[in-house]
């Protein structure tokens, strides 16, 4: 009997094209869109070589310090900061207008920077120029000090070049000792894909709702037929729900395969926890679908609408439409995301990806299981009531 139900529920599900589109194809399509839109965001934020120009004039030619320093900054390699064009003032203005450079440096009595607008790259440009100026000043300062000291020692043979070289070496020696201890997995667009998985998990609710509706006499006529059959509703439902769960998992597996192999999404290194999160996440979706199917007294379309609205709201709060949303909620009203299944799933993946420890992941999985059990328990109360006031 169980398998009889399972078999036919499975058949009805995989033959329903609309259902399959929204639960299988739509998340994948959305994933492709995410990939296309977000693949460059982080790249564009990471440090790129900045295009600038330097106006060639006498002052600049005479200032060996500036020349050498900027030569060093534009040396190809890992530490390259600038790509510099040495041009006339007219050309520099022209380049700036065409936005081929973000700004140019002009040295007269003062060091002068011209940029088109304010921005991060422009600020970096300015900082570096400031630094060069202050270094130059520092060297002069230290050198005059040193020379003064040599004078006071009445040393007749002052080797100016040596002093200058030593000081320059001092200024440019890497004495600062910084240790970058940041975690390596910092790609926040991953959150987008995690919310996508969360959405797919919860969309599974549409599938379980679909099979549940067929068991409710007040929903449709097939439901009536099922209600008058000599088998308890719960028994019939179990087979159908298992079928819907299997269909859901197939869809999710496709989405995983697609995101991992085509979109190169990084889910962290641990396969087993990912699997556990996927099955508990789907379970939460499944239970959400049953609850809506059981308790919302409305037509099939309205029920689907409500379920999708809940799902999308959940995904919105967990960062699908703007990653910072999840953080804002987590920081300010954490309780909302503690009861939001989409956020539990998203946060579960995030903790696997970002944190080396498992306690946050386990917390999320346990939350999902509790959520599912609670929803299923509630639905059972509703389903057990088998007579209706009206059909």
């Amino acid at each position, binding site marked *: *009997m169980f398998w*009889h139900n399972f078999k*036919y529920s499975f*058949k*009805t*599900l995989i*033959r*329903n094209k609309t259902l399959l589109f929204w639960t299988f194809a739509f998340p994948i399509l959305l994933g492709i869109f995410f990939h296309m839109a977000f693949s460059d965001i982080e790249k564009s934020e990471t440090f790129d070589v900045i295009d600038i120009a330097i106006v060639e004039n006498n002052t600049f030619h005479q200032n060996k310090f500036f020349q050498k320093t900027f030569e060093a900054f534009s040396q190809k390699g890992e530490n390259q900061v600038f790509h510099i064009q040495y041009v006339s003032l007219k050309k520099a203005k022209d380049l700036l207008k065409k936005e081929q450079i973000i700004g140019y440096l002009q040295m007269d009595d003062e060091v002068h920077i011209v940029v088109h607008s304010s921005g991060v790259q422009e600020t970096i440009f300015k900082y570096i120029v400031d630094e060069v100026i202050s270094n130059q000043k520092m060297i002069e300062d230290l050198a005059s000090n040193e020379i003064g000291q040599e004078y006071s020692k009445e040393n007749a043979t002052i080797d100016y070049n040596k002093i200058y070289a030593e000081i320059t070496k001092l200024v440019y020696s890497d004495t600062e000792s910084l240790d970058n201890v940041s975690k390596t997995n910092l790609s926040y667009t991953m959150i987008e894909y995690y919310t996508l998985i969360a959405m797919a998990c919860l969309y599974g609710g549409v599938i379980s709702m679909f099979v549940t509706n*067929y068991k409710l*006499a007040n929903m*449709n*006529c*097939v439901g*009536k*037929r*099922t*209600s*008058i*059959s*000599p*088998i*308890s509703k719960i028994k*019939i439902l179990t087979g159908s729900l298992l079928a819907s769960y299997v269909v859901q998992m197939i869809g999710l597996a496709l989405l995983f395969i697609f995101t991992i192999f085509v979109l190169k999404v990084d889910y962290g290194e641990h396969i087993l926890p990912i699997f556990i999160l996927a099955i508990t996440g789907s379970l939460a979706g499944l239970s959400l679908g049953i609850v809506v199917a059981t308790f919302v007294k409305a037509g099939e379309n309205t029920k689907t609408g409500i379920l999708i609205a809940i799902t999308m709201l959940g995904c919105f709060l967990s960062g699908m439409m703007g990653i910072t949303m999840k953080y804002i909620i987590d920081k300010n009203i954490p309780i909302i995301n503690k009861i939001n299944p989409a956020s539990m799933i998203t946060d579960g993946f995030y903790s696997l990806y970002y944190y080396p420890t498992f306690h946050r992941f386990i917390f999320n999985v346990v939350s999902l299981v509790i959520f599912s059990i609670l929803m299923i328990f509630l639905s059972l109360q509703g389903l057990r009531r*088998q*007579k*209706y*006031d*009206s*059909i």
Partner: protein
Amino acid sequence: MKKIIEVKNLTKEYKKLKAIDHLSFEVKEGEILGLLGPNGSGKTTTINCLLSLLKFQEGTIKIFGKDMHPNSYELKRKIGVVFQEIAVFEELTVYENIDYFCGLYISDKETRKKYIEDAIQLVGLENYKKFYPKQLSGGLLRRLNIACGIAHKPKLIFLDEPTVAVDPQSRNNILEGIKRLRDSGATIVYTTHYMEEVEILCDRIIILDKGKILAQGTSTELKELANIDEKITVEVEKISEKVIDKIKRFPTIHEVNLNMNTLIVTYKKGQDNLGKLIDCLKDNKVVYSKIFSERPTLNDVFLSLTGKELRD
């Protein structure tokens, strides 16, 4: 004969509407009981209550001598229902649909296979086994709906308006099938608002209106209630009030009605009524084209009981 269904004092109220009002009736083994009534008279509600799908305020329902509850699975096993709406899966073929619903009752695969074939044959869907519901015409869909309800060979069958909006060929096919079900030993409760079907098919008839039983009995018994015996319909070109008055003075006359060019004359008793009417028309030089006499129908019964037509 055994009582298959026993209903006592069944009352079902919606918020403002009394859908069933202290209804009591019985169904005996092997009979076809017709529940006849206009739309909204409480036929479907009665069936839903019998099936324990609906809550009701008062009354007891016994089926096969036992109380009916949502969990009376042994009773449910013996019942088959054909709902008014088409209750099939869009995504399953004809065969799969029947197999699914039959499978809820019969777990043995071999028996089930045989039963399904029987059901398909009964409703005449042999050539459509692999069709999806979407591809079937209205009549064929109704037949599938019936097959799904009765494939498990139930002892008691409820048919709720199975012939609504069905082409004549399918209708005949369906009615034949129902007779065959009765012949194979099933007890049938049949609701409809088509009195012709009830007359052909049913052993006993209950006429319902506003949730109450107006009358019950065999078709002949009911017609006696109508206190008319013959109905003559004449198509006339022109007829004066004077002639109508003359007809009204006939001794056995019940009523005379003129509706456009159709004159309907009903009689309490039938004895040479047609001859006398024709004579009267001839004498008064009334030109008539068609004339026919018939026995009263259940519609006339209903009309005389409630003052309104069955189908309105």
